[in-house]
C-alpha cells in the first residue's frame, strides 16, 4: 500500500482527532440519554418513565447523530479500518444496531400508543438503552484488544478471524463498566431535567451517591486491567513520562469527586459538566495512550487512512460545517433546557 505524503499524514492525525471528538461528544450527549434509559428500567411509576422519554424528545436524534458522524468519518477517512473492524465486531455491532433501532422507534411512537403499548414501549426503550450501552462498551473493549488481519501481497489487509473473537473477559468487563458510567450520566441528566419538587429527583440523588463509588472503582479496575494485558499501555504509563499519565488520572478523579459534591448541593448543570470533563480526560488519555495506533497492534492511523485524504475536504468540514453544526446543536439544547414534570407523559411531547 502507498505511503502518505507529509501533509496527508498530518491530515490523517487531524481526522483522527475529529473522530475522537465525535465519539466523545456522542458519549457525553447520548450517554446521558442511554443512562436515563437504563435508570428508567428501575423506575416504577409509569408517568415518570414516560416523562424520562419526553424529556429527551427534542434532542435525542441530534445526540445520536454524533455516532453516525463518527461512523461517517471512519468510513470516509479510515475506510480500511472501517471495512475490517466491522467484520471483526459484526455481532456486538448488530446488537447495538438492534438496540438503536428499537430505541428510536420506542421514542417516536410512545406518545401515540395506547396505554398497554406505552408500557411495552417503555420497556423496549429501557432494555434497548441497556443493550446499546453494554454492547457498545464491549465493542470498545474488543477494539482495544486488536484483531487479526491477513497479509496480501497487494491490496488491503482484511479481517480473517472468527466471528466470536470479540468475546473476552476484558470486553465483557468494558461492557459492564460502560453501563455503570452511563447510568451515572443518566441520573445526572434526570436531576437536571426534572422540576425541583419531583420525587424522581430524590431517587436519582440516591442513585448518584451509590453509583458514584462504583464508577470510581470501575475506572480503577479498567486502568489496572489494561496495564496488565496491554503492552502498549504499560509502555506509556510506566515509561519515562509516567507523571503525565498520573496527572491525567488524578485530575479525572478530582472531576468525578466534584460530580458528587455538586449533586449534593443541587447544582445539576455543574455536576453534568464535571462528569463530562472526567469522561473527556479519560477518553483523551486513552486516545493518546494508543497513539499511533488507531486500533492497537492492528491499524496505525496512517496505515488505516485513505490514500485520498485531501486538504480541501478537511478544511471545508472543519472550518465550515462542523463549527456551524455545533452552534446549532448548542442552540437546540438551550431551547429544550426547561425542567419538566412527570406530567409531560400526558402531553404529546
Amino acid at each position: 500500500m502507498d505511503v502518505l505524503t507529509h501533509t496527508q499524514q498530518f491530515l490523517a492525525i487531524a481526522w483522527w482527532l475529529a473522530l475522537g471528538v465525535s465519539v466523545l461528544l456522542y458519549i457525553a450527549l447520548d450517554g446521558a440519554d442511554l443512562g436515563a434509559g437504563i435508570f428508567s428500567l428501575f423506575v416504577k411509576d409509569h408517568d415518570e418513565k414516560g416523562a424520562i422519554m419526553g424529556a429527551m424528545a427534542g434532542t435525542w436524534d441530534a445526540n445520536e447523530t454524533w455516532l453516525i458522524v463518527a461512523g461517517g468519518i471512519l468510513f470516509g477517512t479510515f475506510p480500511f479500518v472501517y471495512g475490517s473492524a466491522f467484520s471483526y465486531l459484526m455481532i456486538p455491532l448488530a446488537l447495538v444496531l438492534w438496540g438503536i433501532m428499537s430505541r428510536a422507534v420506542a421514542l417516536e411512537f410512545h406518545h401515540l400508543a395506547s396505554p398497554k403499548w406505552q408500557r411495552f414501549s417503555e420497556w423496549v426503550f429501557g432494555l434497548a438503552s441497556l443493550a446499546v450501552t453494554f454492547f457498545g462498551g464491549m465493542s470498545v473493549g474488543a477494539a482495544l484488544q486488536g484483531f487479526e488481519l491477513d497479509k496480501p501481497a497487494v491490496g488491503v489487509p482484511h479481517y480473517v478471524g472468527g466471528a466470536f473473537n470479540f468475546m473476552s473477559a476484558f470486553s465483557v468487563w468494558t461492557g459492564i463498566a460502560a453501563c455503570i458510567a452511563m447510568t451515572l450520566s443518566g441520573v445526572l441528566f434526570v436531576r437536571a431535567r426534572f422540576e425541583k419538587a419531583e420525587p424522581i429527583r430524590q431517587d436519582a440523588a440516591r442513585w448518584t451517591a451509590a453509583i458514584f463509588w462504583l464508577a470510581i472503582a470501575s475506572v480503577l479496575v479498567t486502568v489496572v486491567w489494561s496495564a496488565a494485558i496491554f503492552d502498549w499501555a504499560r509502555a506509556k504509563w510506566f515509561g519515562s513520562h509516567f507523571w503525565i499519565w498520573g496527572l491525567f488520572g488524578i485530575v479525572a478523579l478530582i472531576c468525578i469527586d466534584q460530580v458528587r459534591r455538586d449533586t449534593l448541593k443541587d447544582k445539576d448543570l455543574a455536576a453534568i459538566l464535571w462528569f463530562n470533563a472526567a469522561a473527556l480526560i479519560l477518553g483523551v488519555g486513552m486516545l493518546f495512550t494508543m497513539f499511533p495506533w488507531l486500533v492497537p497492534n492492528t491499524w496505525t492511523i496512517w496505515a488505516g487512512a485513505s490514500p485520498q485524504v485531501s486538504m480541501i475536504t478537511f478544511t471545508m468540514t472543519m472550518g465550515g460545517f462542523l463549527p456551524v453544526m455545533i452552534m446549532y446543536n448548542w442552540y437546540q439544547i438551550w431551547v429544550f433546557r426547561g425542567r419538566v414534570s412527570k406530567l409531560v407523559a400526558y402531553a404529546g411531547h
Partner: protein
Amino acid sequence: MDGEALTSLITRIDFALISSLHILFPPLTIGLAALLLVSEALWLKTGKESWYRLCRFFEKLFIVNFGAGVATGVTMEMAFGILYGRFSQAAGPFFGQVLGYETITAFMYEAGFIGLMIFGWGKISRGMHLFATFNVAVSSTLSAMWILVANSWMQTPTGVEYRNGIFYVTDWLAALFNPNAIAAFPHMMLASFELSLCFVIAVCAWFVLRRRHVALFLTPLKYALAVLVVVAAAQIWLGDVLGEQTLESKPAALAAMEGHYNTNHPDGSVDTDWQIIGWPNAKGDGLAWSISVPHLLSVIETKTWNGPVTGLNSFPADQQPPVVLPFYSFRVMAAAGGAILLLALWGVWLRMRGKFTVDLAPTHKIFLAACVGVVALPYLAVVAGWWTREIGRQPWIVYGLMRTEDGMSAMSLGLAIFWLVGFAFFEICVIAGTFWFLLKVVRLGPDLETPIAGEGHEHLGELHVPASGHAEQPEYLRPV
C-alpha cells in the same frame, strides 16, 4: 449449491432487503418536508388558520415516518461495513468519503433542526421555526444528493483508477458529477415529490370521502392534484432520459430491463421490438414467449424508427445480469408512473368542471377512492426502480471494474443467517409499527382545538383536574 454460494446468496438477499426497507421512508421525508414548508409559509403569509392546522397534522405523520427512516438508515450505514467489508475498503477513498460527507453536511445539519421543527412550537419565534423547517427540507435534499452521487458512481465509475485493490480518485469532479448521477438525482427527487404528493392526496381524499373536515382538506387536495400533473409528466420524461443514459453506460442492464436478447434478428434485420410482457426460455438466451410492439424499442431508446439496440447476447455469459426481475420491475415502475399521471389528469378535469366544492366533492366516490389507493403506486415504483437499477448492474458492484462477489465480507453461513433473520424481524416490526401509527394518526384526524402555538417562551400550562370522571388522568396542556 455449496456453502459459499449459499452464504453469498443470503448476504445479497440481506442487503437487498435492508436497502429496500430503507428506501420506503426517505422519499416521504424529503418531499413532505418541502410541502410542510409551503403550508407553514402560507400560514405566515395569509394568516389563515387552516394552513397551520394542516401543517401540524401532516407534521405528526412526518415524525412517524422520520423515526423509521432513521432506524433503517443507521442499519444501511453499518451494513456496508459488515456485509460488504471488502467493497468498503476498496471503494472507501471515494465512496466512503462521499457518505462521510453526507453524514456531516446532511445528517448533522438535519439533526440540528429537526428537533426544533417538531418540538420547538411555542418555544421559538415563528420566523425561527420557519427557518428550521426550511433547513430540514434543504438538508434532506442534500442527503439524497450525496447518496445518489455515491450510488450513481457505482453505476458509472468515472474519475477513478482501480489499482492494487483500491479505487484511487484521479479526478474528483468527474467522479462526483458522473454521467449517471446527472439524470438519477433529479429522477429520485421527483420521485420523492411525486410520492409525497400522492401521500397528501390520499390522506386528504380519505377525509373528504368520509365527509370529515371537508373544507379543510379540499384545498390541499386541489393544489396537490394540480402540481402532480406537472410532476408526474416530468418524471416520465426524466425516466426516459435516465433510460437513454443507461443504454449508453450500462448497455447490458438496459438489455436485461427490456428483455432484449439479440441486436439483430437471425435474418440480419434490426430487432426493434418492445416487449410488453414475456418470459425467458430455459436456456436463457432468448424469450420463450412475449407480446411485443415492433419499432417501439428503437423509438424509445434511439429516437429513430430502426435504430439498433445492443442485445444481451452480445455480452459474455458471466457478464449478463438476471433478466426477469429487472424486466418486470421496470414495467411496474413505468406503469405506475403512467397511472399516477392519469389520476392527476382526472382530478384536474373534475376541477375544471367545477366539482371541487364542499357539497359536490364528497359525491365523487370512485375518484376519491382512486385517490386513496394511488398512494401504493409511487411506493411500488420507488422500490421497483431501485431493483431495476441495482440488479441491472449485476454481476458488478462497481460497473465494469469490481465484481459483487469480490466485495463481500468473509462470512460464515450461520452468521449470514443470523443477520438475515435478525434484520428481517426488526425491520418488519419497524414497518408494521410505522404503518399502524400512520393509520392511527390519520384516524384521529387533525387537532382543531389546541390554541395556536405562541412565540418565544415556554408555556407549561396549568394542571386542572376535571370535576368528574377520570380524576386520575389529569389533563395537562403544553404547546407541543
